[in-house]
């Protein structure tokens, strides 16, 4: 699974770069964020970036899945043949239409749509990143781009903690000793679980709300910020461990 993930994330990063180099028609970004509403909050469709990229991204994504999972060929070809209809439904935000469109298993359809939309969110994330790095700039635990709850946590240079959204490849400053689900700040009920020889990968477990958050200490990393979705999925063993020791998600 790791080779597929790696290729997928590289592909998505390339598309995100192309999108961000194109004209992104954004109203005053700071004013938007100052209202503490995520960028995509009021938009059912993605209206900030040109849509011409969606079709080639879809084609690329289907091809990549097919390369690694040839047994899905038939379903992938079906989706490819109905690409325009699929994109029309997505752009219209027609959730009902998508839910009742049973040409391929829903789980595959849902995953393809997720991955299809990711490059655009990554491009928006890149724009938003400089505005949310300071303490207090974005004080909620939900993503400033898509509004979903943070699904990953990082410790960056100088020990600063950031929550991150793996979908939008964006991170924002957040207090170290605070549960992002219930705001618990009691250090005695926040526990950090890790495998002995891997202290940089921790599970922050909150004993008040029983949620957990995977935390990665990237202070000594010698490379750029890794792709957060890849990091999250490649460490699925931590989720297993967190959940069998009593964590919920």
């Amino acid at each position, binding site marked *: 699974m790791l080779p597929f993930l790696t290729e997928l994330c590289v592909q998505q990063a390339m598309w995100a770069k192309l999108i961000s180099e194109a004209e992104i028609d954004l109203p005053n970004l700071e004013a938007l964020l100052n209202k503490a509403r995520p960028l995509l909050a009021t938009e059912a469709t993605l209206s900030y970036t040109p849509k011409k990229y969606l079709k080639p991204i879809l084609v690329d994504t289907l091809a990549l899945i097919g390369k690694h999972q040839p047994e899905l060929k038939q379903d992938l070809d079906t989706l490819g043949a109905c690409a325009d209809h699929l994109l029309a439904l997505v752009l219209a935000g027609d959730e009902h239409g998508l839910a009742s469109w049973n040409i391929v298993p829903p789980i595959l359809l849902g995953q393809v749509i997720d991955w299809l939309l990711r490059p655009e969110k990554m491009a928006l994330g890149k724009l938003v990143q400089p505005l949310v790095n300071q303490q207090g700039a974005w004080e909620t635990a939900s993503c400033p781009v898509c509004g979903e709850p943070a699904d990953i946590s990082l410790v960056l240079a100088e*020990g600063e903690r950031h929550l991150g959204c793996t979908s939008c490849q964006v991170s924002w400053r957040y207090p170290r000793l605070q549960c992002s689900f219930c705001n618990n700040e009691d250090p005695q009920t926040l526990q*950090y679980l890790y495998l002995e020889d891997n202290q940089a990968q921790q599970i922050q*477990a909150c004993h008040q709300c029983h949620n957990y958050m995977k935390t990665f200490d*990237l202070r000594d990393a010698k490379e750029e910020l890794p792709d957060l979705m890849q990091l999250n999925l490649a460490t699925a*063993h931590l989720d*297993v*461990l967190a959940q069998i020791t009593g964590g919920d998600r």
Partner: protein
Amino acid sequence: MKFSRRRFLQMLGITSAASVMTGLKFFSPEEALALENRLTNSTTTPTICSYCSVGCGLLVHTNSGTIVSIEGDPDHPINRGALCSKGAASFQITSNSKRLANPLYRAPGTNTWVAKDWTWTLTEIANRVKAARDASFIESENGITVNRTEAIASLGGAALDNEEAYLLTKFMRSLGVTYLEHQARL
């Protein structure tokens, strides 16, 4: 990532992580189930540095009651994670074998330090304070009652909190000490 001197000083006790993606061990969910007994846990407690009165924030990481590492608290408004060289070495309070374990006493005219216990030490200090005070106590001067001793001085420091400074003042004044000083005189 830049490698700063401050970061080096903070590395006492912290295991360094290899590059993220290449150092990542990938376990399947089945393998993960078998790892449950290799899971350790730590608690992180915020506290204040014990040295000067700036009061920088620290994060102390403990594992079953043993301190495993100490770093600056990046969310503390005073220092925002930075520590001076003394504060950064706080971990050594718990770990450095060169720390004295007993009071040491060198008798007058000798050149060796002898380890003493606290009972002897505190009794000896009390006796000498009393002796010095009694020998030097001035009840009155030029007809004015002064009740003071100039043979003892008290020097406080920034690590004293308000309650300790208050008790120290009360104690010293009751002895008659006038040389009552403090490092941070503001």
